[in-house]
């Protein structure tokens, strides 16, 4: 029971670890270029979840400081950092997708294995 309880208490961390592994597996094993980009996005999401969970305080409020009252606030720094992280992630996704469009124009396929075959065929000739 205690294991189950600790899993439920740290469900954010468990979920982010699982997502990280799923994402890494997708990037490394799938030969479809789009799926690789999706895998990268899953890894990014898992790390963002992890980072935001680090800053969460149980029962804390949104960090808007009021004059009255002595409240517990959630740590705002990780959320602010992850906002930057999301911007970086979006730009990387956009660049990767534009490269995929160019690769599709050049090779006529989205499959990494087929592209590698086409390339090795060219060099052998």
């Amino acid at each position, binding site marked *: 029971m205690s294991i189950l309880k600790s899993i439920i208490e740290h469900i954010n961390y468990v979920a982010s670890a699982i997502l*990280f592994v799923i994402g890494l597996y997708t*990037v490394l094993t799938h030969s479809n270029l789009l799926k690789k980009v999706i895998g*990268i996005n899953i890894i990014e999401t898992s790390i963002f979840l992890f980072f935001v969970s680090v800053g969460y305080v149980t029962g804390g409020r949104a960090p808007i400081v009021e004059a009255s009252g002595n409240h517990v606030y959630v740590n705002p720094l990780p959320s602010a950092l992850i906002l930057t992280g999301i911007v970086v992630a979006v730009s*990387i996704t956009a660049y990767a997708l534009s*490269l995929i469009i*160019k*690769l599709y124009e050049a090779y006529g396929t989205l499959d990494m294995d087929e592209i590698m075959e086409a390339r090795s065929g060219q060099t052998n000739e």
Partner: protein
Amino acid sequence: MSSIHFPIYSLIILLAAAVAIPIMRKNFDGFMKTFIIAALVGAWLFSLGSLINVFNHGPHVYNFGSWTETIGVQLMIDEFSAIMAFVILTIAGLIVVYSIRDMEHEIPLQQFGSYYILVYILLFCMVGITYTNDLFNMYVFMEILSLTSCGIISIKRKKENFLASFRYLMLNTIGSLSVLLGIALLYMVTGHLNMGEVGKVIAEVWQSYPINILVSLGFMITGLSIKAALFPLHIWLPDAHSTAPTPSSALLSGLVVKVYIFCAAKILFRMIGQDIVIALDVPTYITYFAALSMIMGSIFAIGQKDIKRLLAYSSVAQIGYIFLGLGLATAQGFSAALFHIISHALMKTGLFLSAGAIIYNKGKRDIRELDGIGYEMPITMGVFTISVLGMIGIPGINGFMSKIYLSFAVLAADKPFFLFVILASSFLNAIYYLPIVIAAFLKESKERKNIMVLDAIPKSMIFPMVVIGVSCVIMGLFPQLVMNAIEQVAPTFLTLN
């Protein structure tokens, strides 16, 4: 004009130049060429100013916007970052001068503007990453660096370039994401992002959280070694560095991979601290991978036919030397690593630039076709030969001195096994580099027309190569010029906490 702001000025000039290029002129004419060189010279002068300032008045920190280090971003301007920023800007300046003519046959003239935007943002990030003392700031610079370095590969718009930069982008992103995960794990323990503050907390509590720190270090070092192309994680490097336009290859191979090593050094020694890292037994594993990298990179290079691909594999081996120096975790090993960073940056830039000059003039990339080219391009092949001899470790060139420093460091750390690895790697270097030089100077070319001519390439391409060749020799004959400065770095770096 207060001198503490010098590093910021050099950063701002680089960023402002990148912003100004697209809005100034539509065509890339003589004015634009003058402008980009002037901007780089400005940034270089400010980095020189901060270097002189650091050596006269000692290191200082720069809190951005006057926020305290617990809240804001902090730059650390000490001997290490001042020297390395100066080296980066010096070599980058030579490459940019070279690139103005060389890029003409790589990309259309309309894209020159975009190319220099990318290069200037790249330089901005490299200098920023060297100065910064903040983990998240480091991560952001790293991501911009990976985007721009993929950009300067894919700008050539060939099929291979798109594929190489896609691969590079994927692996680079995995690398920087695992660095971010490591940062998150450290933030969990310490609640700080400033390296100094993190170091202070860790020095007190590390015995309570050894596994957490070990996992976080593992993620960060793995991520950085993907980006720096340590052996099992190097698969993106040969494609990326060989298909890129020559100036981009020189920038990527000579400077960009080094910047990630600076990050690793900062994380290992400045932030976590020498004692804790040794207690966690991290450096031992780094030395194993470094030794593998030194041998395997050279073995892969032996079979290569394409000259730029050969140089790219040789980078994998040379990165191994640098990581070996870091992994020894002694002041001597660290200064040998820094010396090799500078000397490898010079030698590899010289090699790539002279290979690029051969491609520019002759259009030949295959090393079997280079017979007798020493008579047609004596200056180019002279620089190539100097750099090759340095790579092998012939006395009188800087590569020999860095190998000697590294060997002494290995012996002082009582790990004589790595001395054999260094020797074996040097012999392997000779196996794949020397045939090119011998073929170039001693064999006869098939279509040889005249006895001997001077290189038929533009002067602005010859000048940077000659400067690099001469500085390789100067650094080899008078290593104390550089080593005196570096020996001041190591103790401050290793005992900051």
